C-alpha cells in the first residue's frame, strides 16, 4: 500500500452515452515512470485528466496518495496541489511574466512568502534552462521554451506526481528535444511521472513501464523492454509497426 501512489480500480467514464474509459485498473508505485501510448481517441488524455479530476469519473475509485477523489472540492484542491500537470497547449497564463507564472500558485495556494517563491521558481527555471527569460511574457517565447516554463511552473508546487498530457505534440521537431531533455532530467531526479506521448524514443529511455490503450481499455501493460521487444497483443504489434 505504502508505495502505491495512484490506485485506480474498476474505473468507468462516459461522455454522454459514449463510454470513453472502460474498466480501468491501474496502480502506480512511487518514483515509477509510466508512458501511456495509443491511437488518438483511445482515452489516454481522459485517463490522466481523471487522476487530478479535471474530468470526473462515474464509476469505480481513484485513490491518489491515500486520498480518494470524491465530490468534495476542498479535498480536490489539496490533491491537485500535489499533482503537477503539463498540457499539450502549454496553457501558460499570458497576462503574467514567466516568473509570475511560476510563483503565482506557490504564493496564493501554498502561502509561500514572495521572496522564497521567487527563489524556488528561479531554481526550477534554471533546471529547465530558461532562467534568463524569467521576465518575459509567454507570448514572447518559442513553443519549446513555453513548454519548459510550464514544466517549471508545475514543479514549483513541489508535486509528488507529474502528469504529462502529450507535452510535445504541439511543438516542431527541433523544440521537442529540448522539452524531452528537461523531462529526462526530471525523471532521473526520481519524480513519479505518467506521460502520455507518442515519443517512443523517450519511452525507451526513461520509462519503467509502458501502457498501451485502445478504445478506452488498457490493452497491454508491460516493462519497457518487454513491451518493445515482445508485445503480446496483435493490436499492440500493429500500433508499434506503424509508429516505429
Amino acid at each position, binding site marked *: 500500500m505504502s508505495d502505491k501512489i495512484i490506485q485506480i480500480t474498476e474505473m468507468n467514464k462516459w461522455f454522454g452515452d459514449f463510454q470513453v474509459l472502460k474498466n480501468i485498473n491501474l496502480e502506480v508505485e512511487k518514483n515509477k515512470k509510466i508512458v501511456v501510448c495509443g491511437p488518438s481517441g483511445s482515452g489516454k488524455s481522459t485517463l490522466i485528466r481523471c487522476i487530478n479530476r*479535471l474530468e470526473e469519473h462515474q464509476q469505480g475509485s481513484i485513490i491518489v496518495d491515500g486520498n480518494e477523489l470524491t465530490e468534495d472540492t476542498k479535498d480536490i*484542491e489539496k490533491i*491537485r496541489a500535489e499533482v503537477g500537470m503539463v*498540457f499539450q497547449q502549454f496553457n501558460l497564463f499570458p497576462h503574467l511574466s514567466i516568473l509570475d507564472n511560476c510563483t503565482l500558485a506557490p504564493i*496564493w495556494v501554498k502561502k509561500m512568502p514572495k521572496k522564497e517563491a521567487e527563489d524556488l521558481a528561479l531554481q526550477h527555471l534554471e533546471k529547465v534552462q530558461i532562467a534568463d527569460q524569467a521576465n518575459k*511574457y509567454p507570448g514572447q517565447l518559442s513553443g519549446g521554451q513555453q513548454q519548459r516554463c510550464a514544466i517549471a511552473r*508545475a514543479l514549483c508546487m513541489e508535486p509528488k506526481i507529474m502528469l504529462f498530457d502529450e507535452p510535445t505534440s504541439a511543438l516542431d521537431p527541433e523544440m521537442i528535444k529540448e522539452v524531452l531533455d528537461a523531462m529526462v532530467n526530471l525523471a532521473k531526479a526520481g519524480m513519479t511521472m505518467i506521460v502520455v506521448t507518442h515519443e517512443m524514443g523517450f519511452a525507451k529511455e526513461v520509462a519503467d513501464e509502458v501502457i498501451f490503450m485502445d478504445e478506452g481499455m488498457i490493452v497491454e501493460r508491460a516493462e519497457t523492454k518487454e513491451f518493445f521487444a515482445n508485445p503480446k497483443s496483435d493490436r499492440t504489434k500493429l500500433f508499434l509497426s506503424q509508429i516505429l
Partner: protein
Amino acid sequence: MNKLNFLQPDKNNLNTYLYTGTILVALSIFIVFINSFFKKDLISFLPGSISFFLPLILGFIGLHLIRIDYSGLKFLDSINKNINTNNFNAFLSLLIVFVVIKSLPPLLSWFIIDANIAGDSKDVCTGSGACWTYIKIWFNRFMYGMYPNAEQWRINLSFIALAFLGTIGFFATEKFKKYLTLYYVVVYPIIAFFFIFFFISGGPIFFDFSYGIIAAVISIIIGFLIPSKFKMYYFIIVPITLYILLKYVFFYEELIELGKLEALEWVETGAWGGLSLTFIVSFFCLIFCFPIGLFLSLGRRSDFPIIKYFSIGMIEFWRGVPLITVLFMSSVMFPMFLPEDMFIDKLVRVIIAISLFEAAYVAEVIRGGLQALPRGQYDAAKSLGMGYWKMHILVILPQALKLVIPGIANTFLALVKDTPLIFVVGLLEIVGMLNLAKTNPEWLGFAMEGYVFASVLFFIICYAMSKYSYNLEQKYKTER
C-alpha cells in the same frame, strides 16, 4: 520629347501632367470655394446642369492626370496612396472636399460670425446666428441646477477635491503602488460618497460627513503601519468602527445643539441638477454597476442552479425592460413596498435603479470575455490547486476583463448618455435643465443653442472616456 498620352499619365512627362492636373484640381476647388463663401457663381455662363457638375469633372480629370505611381515626389505619392488610388476613390475624395467647403460658411456664420454673446437679455440676439447670451445667462443653472447660488462652492470644492484625490495614483511612489487598487476600489468610493451625500447635501447630516472624513484620514494614516496581509480587512473594518465611535461616543448630538459647530445649509436632492448631477449619477452608477455585473456574469456560469437561475433572471429582467419604466417604478412603485416610516432618497433610488439596469449589460459583456478564454486556462489554474475564487481572481478575470475593455467602455458611455432620462422622476440634470429653460417665457426659441451646448459637453465627456479606455487597452496589451 515623349508623346503625351492623357489617358495614361506616365513618369516621362511628370511635370506636364503634374502642372495640368494640379491646375485643374485647384481650379475646381476654387470655383466651389468662391461659390460657397462669396455666393458668386463663376461659371454661370454655362448651361445649368453643366455648371453644377463642372467642378467635379475638372477635379476628376485633374486627379486622373496626377495619378502617377512612384513619381519620386513624396507629397504626390502620399496623396496618390491615400486619397487618389483609383477613379472611384478620387471621385469620393473630391465629393468630400466639396461638401466640407460647402458646409463651412453656414456653420461658421451660425456659430461665430452672426452669433451674439454680449448683453444679458434676449434683446441682443438679433442676428441670424446662435444666441450664446442665452447659454451665458443660464450657465449657472445648466451646471448646478436649482442648487442655491450661495452654496455652489460646496459642489465645486467637492469635485475639485475628488478630482485631486483621483489623480493620486499618478503621484504614488513605487512603495505605495501596491495599495492603489485597494485605494481606488474601497477607500476612494467611500470618500466620494461622504463628499457627495454629506457635504453637498449638507444639513445636520454634514457632521456625519466630518466624522467620515476624520475616520478616513485616521485610518489611512494608521493603515501604513498595518502589515499588508491584513490590509483588506483593516480598510473595511477600521473606518466604519471609527465612524461609529465618533458619531455615537465622542460627539454627542448635544454637542451640536450647544452650537459649537454650525451646520451647512441643507439642500435636498430634488434641487440638485445640471451637469454636476450628471457627474454624480454617472460616477456612482459606474462604480456600482461594475461589481454587480461582474458577480452576475460569474453567477450565470455557476454550477449551482439557484445562483445560476437567479443571475439569469436578473440579467434577462433588467435587459428586458426599458430604462424609463425602471426609473418610473423606482420612484413610484418602489416606495410602496417599503415600511411606512422608511424613506429612501429619490436620488439614491435612481442610482440603484440605473446601476442594476446597466449591471445586466455589463454582466453580458463580461460573460463574453469569460467565454473567449480557452478551457486550458481553467485546466491549468485548477491543476495548480487553485479553488474557484483564486482561479477567477488571479487567472481568469484579469484576462477576461482585458478582453472586454472596449465592450465595457461602450456600456459606460451608454450609461452616461442615459442619465438624462432621470427627468421622469423629476431630477433635472443638464438636458432636463435645458428643457426647463427652453419653456421659460422670456427665453423662448433658443432650444437649438441649448442642445448644441449639451451635445458639445456630452461629446467632451464621452470622448475623454473613450480615449481613456483606449489607453487602458494599450496599457494592458501583452503578447498573445
